[in-house]
């Protein structure tokens, strides 16, 4: 490799294009420095600094939206700027901002260290953004592992609690297993593609474009197909699709509530961002294999997620398992997007509505939970609507949107997916999805019932449980945030222009 060539590659390292990621990384470092140099009583301001950093970057990305630099590949093809990448950036920034908000409720109550939490959240956010924009398997794997290792730490963050540590352990073992499988898939792809020389530049099987070209010419190459399936399997673990969902309920239950929200929203969205990129830009010649595999995955995921959620009383497990079923609906969108291009936008629309609704629900859960947030049962919501009508209303809107009840945003998300599936002639999957939605009404409705229709299960005779303390009243910022989420959920049900003009172009 000549020096000139190296210099040419180095010249394509355009750091400015990664401004948002760099800002977050520098912000994360700055948090540590500030913790070191500032007096201890001022440490409680640090969370706000993290939120501010996320907010500033979010505003910056939104302002510059549309001014993307075409479909440009940077860093010698490691990263690719694109419109979906921008959407993913906005999604992850918004989600992390809300995770920071949840953390300001939960962390002080649990007496857990704070600065490190926000530091890790910032780094993970930057890595998530890189992951969604990566165009190269090395970049992909490194960013993915940064996210995953960040999550191992965050899940086991409450080191005083056995449940949190246990959840961390489970996530680590299964996460590492899936990473290993994914890595083996990448290796097989690398091996299958071999050395491709084009115009004096050597390409390898790590580059998405090279793999795509290779698969176009050899769509039935066994090694590459096996590698692609292993990679898809690894990604299916991240989105919690059947049969890779075994970690979901336990990990969701044990993890601190903000982390559960982070996992449920950002981790899942990252999985789908990656899946969409892979399916469209890398493995598209393998449709004959991918469509049946993904369809089967979608159907079993919907059925399993809904049936398993039916029996749950623990709210975090319920959110986890219902999240599995949401992954199933989203998978239908991914399958549909292979024949109906706009379905990819519908997947993102669904993800945004899911973000708004589940963050609202997690916000209420954070307030309802006492210091121990892993044992929250549906029964604990008994007096919520009477004692805290605001939280009750937020919960009702959030859960309603998750259930896909019109006129809330979640319904529009489902509608777009269903229309896409219809246009793609996925009738079988549609039937499964409708059955799933009807089942899901049971448990979502049960939650609303627990919060709004008082005394629905008479207490067992004899054993009078100690009355639970009243859920904490939300702070001013809490009211504003939750109200904004609720309002956005309601408004998006009526008026979708702001999102559709971005996503469905």
């Amino acid at each position: 490799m000549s020096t000139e060539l190296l210099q040419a590659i180095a010249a394509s390292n355009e750091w400015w294009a990664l401004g948002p990621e760099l800002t977050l990384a520098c912000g994360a470092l700055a948090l540590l420095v500030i913790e070191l140099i500032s007096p201890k009583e001022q440490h409680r301001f640090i969370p706000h600094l993290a939120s501010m950093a996320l907010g500033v970057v979010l505003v910056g990305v939104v302002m510059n939206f549309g001014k993307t630099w075409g479909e440009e590949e940077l860093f010698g093809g490691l990263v690719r700027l694109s419109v979906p990448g921008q959407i993913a950036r906005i999604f992850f920034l918004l989600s992390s901002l809300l995770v920071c908000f949840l953390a300001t409720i939960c962390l002080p109550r649990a007496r857990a260290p704070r600065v490190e939490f926000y530091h890790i959240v910032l780094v993970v956010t930057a890595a998530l953004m890189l992951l969604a924009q990566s165009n190269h398997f090395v970049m992909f794997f490194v960013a993915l592992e940064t996210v995953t290792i960040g999550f191992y730490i965050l899940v086991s963050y409450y080191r005083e609690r056995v449940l949190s540590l246990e959840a961390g352990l489970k996530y680590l073992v299964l996460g590492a297993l899936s990473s290993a499988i994914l890595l083996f898939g990448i290796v097989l792809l690398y091996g299958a593609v071999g050395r491709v020389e084009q115009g004096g530049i050597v390409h390898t099987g790590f580059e998405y474009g090279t793999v795509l070209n290779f698969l176009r010419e050899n769509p039935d190459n066994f090694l590459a197909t096996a590698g692609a399936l292993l990679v898809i399997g690894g990604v299916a673990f991240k989105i919690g699709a059947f049969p890779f969902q075994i970690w979901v309920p336990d990990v969701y239950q044990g993890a601190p509530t903000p982390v559960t929200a982070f996992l449920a929203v950002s981790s899942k969205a990252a999985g789908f961002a990656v899946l969409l990129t892979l399916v469209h830009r890398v493995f598209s010649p393998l449709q004959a294999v991918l469509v049946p595999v993904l369809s089967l995955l979608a159907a079993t995921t919907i059925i399993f997620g809904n049936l398993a959620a039916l029996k749950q009383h623990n709210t975090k497990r319920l959110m986890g398992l219902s999240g599995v079923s949401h992954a199933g609906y989203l998978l239908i969108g991914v399958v549909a997007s292979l024949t109906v291009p706009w379905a990819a936008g519908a997947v993102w629309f669904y993800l945004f509505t899911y973000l708004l609704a589940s963050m609202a629900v997690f916000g209420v859960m954070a307030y309802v939970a006492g210091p121990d947030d892993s044992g929250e049962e549906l029964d604990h919501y008994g007096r919520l609507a009477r004692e805290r009508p605001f939280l009750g209303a937020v919960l009702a809107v959030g859960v309603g949107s998750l259930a896909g009840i019109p006129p809330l945003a979640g319904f529009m998300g489902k509608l777009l997916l269903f229309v896409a599936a219809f246009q793609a002639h996925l009738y079988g999957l549609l039937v499964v999805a409708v059955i799933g939605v009807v089942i899901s009404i049971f448990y979502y409705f049960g939650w609303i019932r627990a919060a709004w229709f008082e005394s629905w299960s008479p207490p067992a005779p004899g054993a009078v449980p100690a009355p639970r303390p009243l859920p904490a009243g939300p702070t001013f910022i809490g009211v504003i945030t939750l109200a904004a989420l609720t309002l956005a959920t309601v408004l998006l049900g009526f008026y979708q222009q702001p999102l559709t003009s971005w996503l469905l172009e």
Partner: protein
Amino acid sequence: MPDNAQLLQLAIATPLGAALIIACGLPKRFSTKLAAAAFTLPALIALWLWSQFPAENAHQYAFLSTTYTGLADFGISLKLGLNGIALPMFLLAAIVGLAAGYYALRSGAERLKLYLLLLLVMHGGLLGVFASVDIFFFYFFHELALIPTFIMVGVWGGRDRHYAAMKLTIYLTAGALLSLLGLIALYVKSGANSFDLIELKDAIAAGGLRGSTQNWIGGLLLLGFGTLVSLWPLHTWAPLGYGAAPSSAAMLHAGVLKKFGLYGLIQIALPLLPLGMQHWAWKLALLAGLGNVLVVGFVTLAQRDLKQMIGYSSVMHMGYCFLGLACLSTIGTGGVVLLMVAHGLSVALLFLLATSIHHRTHSFDLSEMGGLAQKTPVLAAFFVAATMASIGLPGFANFWGELTVFVALWKFSPGLTAVAIAGVVISAIYGLRAAARVFFGPVSEQHQRVQAQHPPADLDWREKLPALILLAALLFFGFYPKAISQPVDQALGYSATPKALFTPLKTR
């Protein structure tokens, strides 16, 4: 002065806007006033629009307006307008909403603000359903009205409210989802790529739909809408739900919201899927005739609970509507529209009066009542009138609806006509027996005790006013059915004629 299209928008926006303002924390004192205004304004607008409606062009939509919500690429836009079929239904929604709202205002329900808020959302949704030209929003507004029903049954309901709310939710959500699938199928299969009913009609007129496609979409719609309208054997949610629902919710749901499915079949399925409807017509007629009218009729006879009885009777009357629909003729369908309006008014009145009776007897059990007429002659008069209307005696709107349906049905199948007329006899038996049990005869022991504790007073104004509104409407349409039948006739002449069935269809 806003034009009529804007008035139509205003009528739908008023209750929803009022609900939003109340949700933001308006004090109770102002909330009730605002709610009263928000129930009144749509009724006034509906009356005005009715007077302005161009009767000779009833098949076209008047007062059209389109608002884009960001899904224009999918052919979804908030398109509002009224045609000859939608107008009477819109009027019905406004009138029943007015009565139910006034009744709720002074009902003294716990957490009254929330109750009014939900009722306002429901009312806004109902008005939206019948004013939507876009079938996506047609569905959307239906759900908007449906959700408050579940909550109202669950929170303010009577006996078994949790079970009833759950059952209601499952049945109605499943039904609604099935019909949504049917609507999406229409959207995709018609090739119009639009949910706009007018464009859908044009696209199908231009291209046509294959018979087999029509059959399965029609089946999907019938199953979905049928569940919503309590077609036998999918009706079991209805008596249970109405038995448990608070009075205003029951009035609005049984009176208006339930007609959504029938209205959908008339406005969408009949003109767009004539072959599909023909395919299912006999099956539908048999289910409705034997199931809804006969089986449910006998079950109604056996009821001892006043509210449950009214619930079952409304299921039974839906049977006539399905029978009229199955005739696939202009006259039959027109009769269904008449019957829908009449039944909506009468069943709402019955639910209102049943609750008023409960206030005085503290029971819904027919065997625990008796002789109430001595203490409350006005209530008795209203109840007897409502019962007669419901049976279909001349002078009330129901008479014309049932008569037209029977005339159409005779051509379709004399046997089923006999069954339907037997149904009228059944409904006369249970209706009059209930009136006799409650108001006449000896006072039961149980009721004597209640009377001793709470001496019953006659209807006061808060009950009388909504009841009067409903009764006046019933009588008005009873003596002047042309007010509805003319626009309906006009509109149907263009869309649901049997002619459409025999025009050659290009297969795609």
